[in-house]
Protein backbone atom coordinates (compact mmCIF):
# COMPACT_ATOMS: atom_id res chain seq x y z
CA UNK A 1 0.00 0.00 0.00
CA UNK A 2 1.43 3.39 -0.97
CA UNK A 3 2.10 6.09 1.61
CA UNK A 4 -0.66 8.26 0.11
CA UNK A 5 -3.18 5.45 0.37
CA UNK A 6 -2.17 4.74 3.95
CA UNK A 7 -2.49 8.41 4.79
CA UNK A 8 -5.92 8.63 3.21
CA UNK A 9 -7.08 5.52 5.02
CA UNK A 10 -5.75 6.86 8.33
CA UNK A 11 -7.42 10.23 7.71
CA UNK A 12 -10.71 8.55 7.01
CA UNK A 13 -10.46 6.46 10.18
CA UNK A 14 -9.76 9.63 12.15
CA UNK A 15 -12.77 11.29 10.57
CA UNK A 16 -14.98 8.34 11.50
CA UNK A 17 -13.69 8.51 15.08
CA UNK A 18 -14.31 12.23 15.09
CA UNK A 19 -17.91 11.70 13.98
CA UNK A 20 -18.43 9.03 16.63
CA UNK A 21 -16.83 11.28 19.22
CA UNK A 22 -19.14 14.07 18.15
CA UNK A 23 -22.07 11.77 18.82
CA UNK A 24 -20.81 10.97 22.28
CA UNK A 25 -20.24 14.68 22.92
CA UNK A 26 -23.91 15.25 22.01
CA UNK A 27 -25.07 12.61 24.43
CA UNK A 28 -22.64 13.49 27.24
CA UNK A 29 -23.12 17.25 27.32
CA UNK A 30 -26.75 17.18 26.15
CA UNK A 31 -26.93 20.61 24.56
CA UNK A 32 -30.09 22.45 25.52
CA UNK A 33 -31.81 23.42 22.29
CA UNK A 34 -34.85 25.57 21.63
CA UNK A 35 -37.38 24.61 18.96
CA UNK A 36 -35.90 27.04 16.38
CA UNK A 37 -32.45 25.51 17.05
CA UNK A 38 -33.85 21.97 16.76
CA UNK A 39 -35.41 22.91 13.41
CA UNK A 40 -32.00 24.19 12.28
CA UNK A 41 -30.25 20.95 13.32
CA UNK A 42 -32.90 18.84 11.56
CA UNK A 43 -32.60 20.76 8.29
CA UNK A 44 -28.77 20.91 8.46
CA UNK A 45 -28.45 17.16 9.14
CA UNK A 46 -30.49 16.42 6.02
CA UNK A 47 -28.64 18.99 3.91
CA UNK A 48 -25.30 17.43 4.88
CA UNK A 49 -26.36 14.01 3.62
CA UNK A 50 -27.72 15.51 0.40
CA UNK A 51 -24.29 17.11 -0.06
CA UNK A 52 -22.59 13.73 0.39
CA UNK A 53 -25.03 12.13 -2.07
CA UNK A 54 -24.24 14.77 -4.69
CA UNK A 55 -20.52 14.05 -4.35
CA UNK A 56 -21.22 10.32 -4.80
CA UNK A 57 -23.38 10.96 -7.86
CA UNK A 58 -20.56 12.97 -9.41
CA UNK A 59 -17.67 10.65 -8.52
CA UNK A 60 -18.96 7.06 -8.48
CA UNK A 61 -19.77 4.81 -11.40
CA UNK A 62 -21.07 1.96 -9.23
CA UNK A 63 -24.79 1.37 -9.84
CA UNK A 64 -25.54 0.39 -6.21
CA UNK A 65 -23.75 3.47 -4.87
CA UNK A 66 -25.47 5.70 -7.42
CA UNK A 67 -28.89 4.29 -6.57
CA UNK A 68 -28.27 4.67 -2.83
CA UNK A 69 -27.06 8.26 -3.32
CA UNK A 70 -30.14 9.07 -5.41
CA UNK A 71 -32.36 7.68 -2.63
CA UNK A 72 -30.51 9.74 0.02
CA UNK A 73 -30.87 12.90 -2.04
CA UNK A 74 -34.60 12.34 -2.64
CA UNK A 75 -35.53 11.14 0.86
CA UNK A 76 -33.59 13.81 2.77
CA UNK A 77 -35.04 16.50 0.51
CA UNK A 78 -38.52 15.15 1.33
CA UNK A 79 -37.72 15.46 5.04
CA UNK A 80 -36.43 19.03 4.55
CA UNK A 81 -39.62 19.91 2.65
CA UNK A 82 -41.72 18.59 5.54
CA UNK A 83 -39.62 20.47 8.10
CA UNK A 84 -39.79 23.72 6.13
CA UNK A 85 -43.57 23.36 5.74
CA UNK A 86 -43.91 22.83 9.48
CA UNK A 87 -41.71 25.75 10.60
CA UNK A 88 -43.52 27.98 8.10
CA UNK A 89 -46.84 26.90 9.58
CA UNK A 90 -45.56 27.40 13.13
CA UNK A 91 -43.91 30.72 12.16
CA UNK A 92 -40.60 29.48 13.55
CA UNK A 93 -37.31 30.65 12.04
CA UNK A 94 -34.57 27.98 12.29
CA UNK A 95 -31.77 29.36 14.46
CA UNK A 96 -28.09 28.58 14.06
CA UNK A 97 -26.49 26.85 17.07
CA UNK A 98 -23.37 24.87 18.08
CA UNK A 99 -24.85 21.50 17.03
CA UNK A 100 -25.66 22.72 13.51
CA UNK A 101 -22.22 24.34 13.31
CA UNK A 102 -20.54 21.08 14.36
CA UNK A 103 -22.51 19.16 11.73
CA UNK A 104 -21.39 21.62 9.04
CA UNK A 105 -17.75 21.59 10.20
CA UNK A 106 -17.66 17.77 10.10
CA UNK A 107 -19.39 17.82 6.71
CA UNK A 108 -16.66 20.06 5.30
CA UNK A 109 -13.99 17.58 6.44
CA UNK A 110 -15.95 14.65 4.98
CA UNK A 111 -16.40 16.49 1.67
CA UNK A 112 -12.67 17.13 1.45
CA UNK A 113 -11.87 13.51 2.22
CA UNK A 114 -14.40 12.12 -0.28
CA UNK A 115 -13.24 14.44 -3.02
CA UNK A 116 -9.70 13.15 -2.61
CA UNK A 117 -10.78 9.60 -3.47
CA UNK A 118 -11.97 7.79 -6.56
CA UNK A 119 -13.03 4.34 -7.76
CA UNK A 120 -13.37 1.54 -5.21
CA UNK A 121 -11.72 3.61 -2.47
CA UNK A 122 -14.34 6.32 -2.95
CA UNK A 123 -17.24 3.84 -2.92
CA UNK A 124 -16.00 2.30 0.31
CA UNK A 125 -15.34 5.65 1.98
CA UNK A 126 -18.76 6.99 0.96
CA UNK A 127 -20.73 4.02 2.20
CA UNK A 128 -18.66 3.74 5.40
CA UNK A 129 -19.37 7.39 6.10
CA UNK A 130 -23.09 6.88 5.43
CA UNK A 131 -23.20 4.13 8.06
CA UNK A 132 -21.39 6.28 10.63
CA UNK A 133 -23.32 9.43 9.76
CA UNK A 134 -26.76 7.81 9.99
CA UNK A 135 -25.86 6.20 13.32
CA UNK A 136 -24.74 9.60 14.64
CA UNK A 137 -27.84 11.45 13.36
CA UNK A 138 -30.22 8.77 14.70
CA UNK A 139 -28.54 9.11 18.08
CA UNK A 140 -28.87 12.92 18.05
CA UNK A 141 -32.55 12.73 17.02
CA UNK A 142 -33.36 10.14 19.69
CA UNK A 143 -31.36 11.57 22.59
CA UNK A 144 -31.43 15.32 21.94
CA UNK A 145 -33.91 16.55 19.35
CA UNK A 146 -37.00 14.53 20.28
CA UNK A 147 -36.65 14.83 24.08
CA UNK A 148 -35.95 18.57 23.89
CA UNK A 149 -38.52 19.68 21.35
CA UNK A 150 -41.36 21.58 23.01
CA UNK A 151 -43.82 21.81 20.14
CA UNK A 152 -45.84 18.61 19.71
CA UNK A 153 -45.91 18.86 15.91
CA UNK A 154 -42.14 19.32 15.73
CA UNK A 155 -41.65 16.35 18.06
CA UNK A 156 -44.11 14.35 15.94
CA UNK A 157 -42.25 15.12 12.72
CA UNK A 158 -38.93 14.07 14.27
CA UNK A 159 -40.51 10.79 15.40
CA UNK A 160 -41.98 10.31 11.94
CA UNK A 161 -38.62 10.69 10.15
CA UNK A 162 -36.77 8.23 12.39
CA UNK A 163 -37.91 5.07 10.52
CA UNK A 164 -36.49 6.52 7.29
CA UNK A 165 -33.11 7.11 8.94
CA UNK A 166 -33.12 3.56 10.34
CA UNK A 167 -33.99 2.16 6.89
CA UNK A 168 -31.15 4.20 5.34
CA UNK A 169 -28.74 2.84 7.95
CA UNK A 170 -29.81 -0.77 7.26
CA UNK A 171 -29.48 -0.17 3.51
CA UNK A 172 -26.00 1.34 3.94
CA UNK A 173 -24.89 -1.56 6.18
CA UNK A 174 -26.21 -4.00 3.56
CA UNK A 175 -24.14 -2.30 0.84
CA UNK A 176 -21.11 -1.92 3.11
CA UNK A 177 -20.57 -5.70 3.02
CA UNK A 178 -19.81 -5.46 -0.72
CA UNK A 179 -17.07 -2.82 -0.49
Amino acid at each position, binding site marked *: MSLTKSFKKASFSLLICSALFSTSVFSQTKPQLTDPEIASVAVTANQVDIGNAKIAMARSKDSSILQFAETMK*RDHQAVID*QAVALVTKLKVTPKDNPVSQKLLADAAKTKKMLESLSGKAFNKAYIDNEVVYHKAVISVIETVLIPESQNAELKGLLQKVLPAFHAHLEHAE*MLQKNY
Partner: protein
Amino acid sequence: MLILNMLRCCKKIINLNLRICLLGILAGSFLPLAFLNSCASGPEKRVPETHTIVISAMQFSPAELTLQRGDTVIFLNKDLVVHDITQLPDKSWSSSNLSPGQSFRMAVGSSTDYYCSIHPTMKGRLLVQP
Protein backbone atom coordinates in the same frame (compact mmCIF):
# COMPACT_ATOMS: atom_id res chain seq x y z
CA MET B 1 -134.22 -36.63 -5.19
CA LEU B 2 -132.00 -39.14 -6.86
CA ILE B 3 -131.23 -36.67 -9.60
CA LEU B 4 -130.44 -34.01 -7.06
CA ASN B 5 -128.02 -36.35 -5.26
CA MET B 6 -126.39 -37.27 -8.55
CA LEU B 7 -125.93 -33.58 -9.41
CA ARG B 8 -124.30 -32.85 -5.99
CA CYS B 9 -121.98 -35.81 -6.48
CA CYS B 10 -121.00 -34.59 -9.92
CA LYS B 11 -120.27 -31.10 -8.51
CA LYS B 12 -118.00 -32.59 -5.83
CA ILE B 13 -116.12 -34.61 -8.42
CA ILE B 14 -115.71 -31.55 -10.63
CA ASN B 15 -114.48 -29.47 -7.68
CA LEU B 16 -111.99 -32.17 -6.74
CA ASN B 17 -110.78 -32.47 -10.31
CA LEU B 18 -110.44 -28.73 -10.54
CA ARG B 19 -108.32 -28.68 -7.38
CA ILE B 20 -106.15 -31.53 -8.64
CA CYS B 21 -105.82 -29.78 -11.94
CA LEU B 22 -104.82 -26.51 -10.29
CA LEU B 23 -102.28 -28.32 -8.12
CA GLY B 24 -100.91 -29.97 -11.25
CA ILE B 25 -100.57 -26.64 -13.01
CA LEU B 26 -98.86 -25.11 -10.01
CA ALA B 27 -96.53 -28.06 -9.63
CA GLY B 28 -95.84 -28.04 -13.35
CA SER B 29 -94.93 -24.37 -13.18
CA PHE B 30 -92.62 -24.52 -10.18
CA LEU B 31 -90.85 -27.81 -10.70
CA PRO B 32 -88.89 -26.70 -13.80
CA LEU B 33 -87.96 -23.47 -11.99
CA ALA B 34 -86.78 -25.42 -8.97
CA PHE B 35 -84.80 -27.70 -11.27
CA LEU B 36 -83.19 -24.79 -13.08
CA ASN B 37 -82.43 -23.11 -9.80
CA SER B 38 -80.70 -26.20 -8.43
CA CYS B 39 -78.63 -26.46 -11.63
CA ALA B 40 -77.52 -22.79 -11.50
CA SER B 41 -76.41 -22.70 -7.86
CA GLY B 42 -73.79 -25.51 -8.31
CA PRO B 43 -70.47 -24.55 -6.64
CA GLU B 44 -70.98 -21.02 -5.19
CA LYS B 45 -69.20 -18.23 -7.06
CA ARG B 46 -66.99 -16.00 -4.80
CA VAL B 47 -66.91 -12.28 -5.34
CA PRO B 48 -63.25 -11.10 -5.52
CA GLU B 49 -62.21 -8.91 -2.61
CA THR B 50 -60.08 -5.78 -2.50
CA HIS B 51 -57.35 -5.54 0.13
CA THR B 52 -55.32 -2.48 1.09
CA ILE B 53 -51.65 -2.56 2.09
CA VAL B 54 -50.55 0.69 3.69
CA ILE B 55 -46.95 1.87 3.31
CA SER B 56 -46.02 3.81 6.41
CA ALA B 57 -42.92 4.28 8.61
CA MET B 58 -40.85 2.41 6.00
CA GLN B 59 -43.00 -0.74 6.28
CA PHE B 60 -45.69 -2.58 4.35
CA SER B 61 -48.68 -3.17 6.60
CA PRO B 62 -49.67 -5.95 6.70
CA ALA B 63 -46.27 -7.28 5.60
CA GLU B 64 -47.84 -10.67 4.84
CA LEU B 65 -51.33 -10.88 3.33
CA THR B 66 -53.32 -14.07 2.62
CA LEU B 67 -55.87 -13.71 -0.18
CA GLN B 68 -57.71 -15.60 -2.93
CA ARG B 69 -56.74 -15.84 -6.59
CA GLY B 70 -58.28 -12.90 -8.47
CA ASP B 71 -58.46 -10.61 -5.43
CA THR B 72 -57.18 -7.07 -5.85
CA VAL B 73 -54.52 -5.40 -3.74
CA ILE B 74 -54.13 -1.65 -3.40
CA PHE B 75 -50.77 -0.38 -2.11
CA LEU B 76 -51.29 3.05 -0.56
CA ASN B 77 -48.22 5.19 0.21
CA LYS B 78 -48.88 7.06 3.44
CA ASP B 79 -45.18 7.58 4.13
CA LEU B 80 -43.02 10.72 3.95
CA VAL B 81 -40.94 9.46 1.04
CA VAL B 82 -41.31 7.86 -2.41
CA HIS B 83 -41.63 4.06 -2.58
CA ASP B 84 -42.29 1.40 -5.20
CA ILE B 85 -43.44 -2.23 -5.21
CA THR B 86 -41.25 -4.69 -7.10
CA GLN B 87 -41.63 -8.46 -7.43
CA LEU B 88 -39.00 -10.68 -5.83
CA PRO B 89 -36.74 -12.40 -6.67
CA ASP B 90 -36.60 -11.68 -10.43
CA LYS B 91 -38.32 -8.26 -10.58
CA SER B 92 -40.87 -9.63 -13.08
CA TRP B 93 -43.22 -6.72 -12.34
CA SER B 94 -42.94 -3.37 -10.65
CA SER B 95 -45.09 -0.37 -9.90
CA SER B 96 -44.00 3.09 -10.88
CA ASN B 97 -42.59 5.31 -8.12
CA LEU B 98 -45.35 6.19 -5.68
CA SER B 99 -45.13 9.64 -4.14
CA PRO B 100 -46.77 10.18 -0.74
CA GLY B 101 -50.54 9.87 -1.19
CA GLN B 102 -50.32 7.82 -4.40
CA SER B 103 -51.41 4.19 -4.76
CA PHE B 104 -50.83 1.14 -6.96
CA ARG B 105 -53.57 -1.38 -7.75
CA MET B 106 -53.06 -4.94 -9.01
CA ALA B 107 -55.00 -8.20 -9.38
CA VAL B 108 -53.20 -11.09 -7.74
CA GLY B 109 -52.86 -14.34 -9.66
CA SER B 110 -50.34 -16.22 -7.56
CA SER B 111 -48.30 -16.04 -4.36
CA THR B 112 -45.32 -13.74 -4.53
CA ASP B 113 -42.72 -11.89 -2.51
CA TYR B 114 -42.07 -8.21 -3.16
CA TYR B 115 -39.97 -5.33 -1.88
CA CYS B 116 -39.36 -1.62 -2.32
CA SER B 117 -36.48 -1.37 -4.79
CA ILE B 118 -35.72 2.14 -3.49
CA HIS B 119 -35.44 0.91 0.11
CA PRO B 120 -34.46 -2.77 -0.26
CA THR B 121 -34.88 -3.56 3.43
CA MET B 122 -38.68 -3.09 3.06
CA LYS B 123 -40.21 -6.46 2.15
CA GLY B 124 -43.65 -8.06 1.91
CA ARG B 125 -45.43 -11.24 0.84
CA LEU B 126 -48.75 -12.07 -0.87
CA LEU B 127 -50.00 -15.59 -0.17
CA VAL B 128 -52.70 -16.89 -2.52
CA GLN B 129 -54.76 -19.67 -0.93
CA PRO B 130 -54.97 -22.81 -3.10
